[in-house]
């Protein structure tokens, strides 16, 4: 019985911890976004195909909204040395991908990349959620990465 209680507590502990995305680096306000935080922000949608080529509708929050909340240089501020900034996305399995900030900015592109928390109106399936990136219009889905845990804005320093 004691063992059972301990196990349940441990599992509860695990669940309550993690489900968040850290936004850090070259930001004015570092954030730790939970599922509830994302639901309270302006929502956006994007479409991506699965392995079979079937399109699915994802919803979540545009990265540009997250950047605005965290105080990342966007729009008119995205000039000069700020164009040497990039976003490093890290996933739970330690998979990492980068975007230059210009790739994600509405003054440069109409493409809206979202941090998705739902597919077809439901939470993302185990293994890909709770949060994943959806990058519309790319030939390879390699940056639609699963289980995002960190969005880190950095300067290219070389």
């Amino acid at each position: 019985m004691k063992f059972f209680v301990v196990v349940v507590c441990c599992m509860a502990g695990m669940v309550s911890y993690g489900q968040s995305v850290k936004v850090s680096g070259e930001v004015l306000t570092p954030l730790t976004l939970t599922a509830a935080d994302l639901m309270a922000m302006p929502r956006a949608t994007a479409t991506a195909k699965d392995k079979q080529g079937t399109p699915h509708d994802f919803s979540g929050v545009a990265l540009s909204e997250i950047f605005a909340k965290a105080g990342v240089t966007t729009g008119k501020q995205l000039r000069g040395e700020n164009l040497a900034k990039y976003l490093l996305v890290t996933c739970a399995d330690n998979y990492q991908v980068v975007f230059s900030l210009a790739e994600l900015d509405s003054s440069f592109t109409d493409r809206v990349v979202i941090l998705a928390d739902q597919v077809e109106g439901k939470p993302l399936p185990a293994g890909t959620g709770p949060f994943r990136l959806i990058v519309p219009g790319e030939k390879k889905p390699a940056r639609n990465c699963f289980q995002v845990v960190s969005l880190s804005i950095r300067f290219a320093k070389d």
Partner: protein
Amino acid sequence: MFFFRYIFFIVAAGAIVSSGFAPSGGGASGPTQSGSAGSGPTPYPLKYPAYFGNRVNLREDNPLTVEGVALGRYLFYEKRLSRNNTVSCSGCHQQARAFTDGRAFSLGFDGVQTRRNSMSLTNLLWVRQFFWDGRVGSLEEQAVVPLTDAHEMGQTLEGSADKLRGDARYRRLFAAAFGGDSEGGQGGKVVTGERIVKALAQFERTLISSDARYDRYIRGDYQLTASERRGLDLFFGSAGCGRCHGGPKIFNETYHNNGLDRVFKDSGRAMVTKMAYDRGRFRSVTLRNVELTAPYMHDGRFGSLPEVIDHYNEHVEASNTLSPSLRDTAQRPIRLGLTAVEKKDLLAFLHTLTDSTFITDPRFSEPKF
């Protein structure tokens, strides 16, 4: 054309690195090979193929030096670093086995088994998180764990330093590597626990394997057999192995639940992250020299490579945290369905990753005083 490009990069890398320039890697720390004009230790000339890339894990506070690496090599084989002077790092990390020990679980100084399988020490320069669960970010931090673990080597760093301080040869080696006067009554400052760990880390960073048949193939010096070629195509293609063991290093630093169990005896990376979705997830290891590193997996459950291939072919188990790479769109475990010939081809390719130069390199063997 493909091959010529690589040859050029290799030559260029050799020239750059041996002239004292250190490639700056990912992460906050930059180049660390600052030269020491005049006296002091000599920067260690790191050499590796350009196709490995420069995302290396060097430490600004522990630059690689010839003297530091030499000391680290002595320490790696030093049994006095264990409580009863019976076990050295090399006990569980034997060069002939690509620095593993052939056991499912290793035995510490007191004969008690470790919790996980001894990891191969290969191309650690490109590793940024260590252990099966990635719990530390440097080889310096990593080395402290087996040295001081109650059942592995069982001795405090200070206890180890005390033992070595009485040996004039070590006092000289430490002074050469890190400075100080070995004979001037400064034994305590010359031989320290921190320096033990730093020297071990330096030596380990030099354990570079880049002369397997697969490397020679990349460089255009070796023609794969038909079976090896088919195996390579499977590995990087339909069998999907390269997704987690990809690139010329045959290593991506990622963590996956590869479907070993439905219920986890060892929760793996979740112990580090406290995240439910990391339960049963472990490092996807480098497959360089994989022919030599049996038994396989974090618990050494598979005694041979055919058993490992059989696992991915037929026995991947479903669970909540199973890697998405091993699920189909209906979320069921993928089973590869390879034929007997395809399995043999895959095995033939895995054997091209064996680097006999690495396992016989005298720079990595037990040194004699």
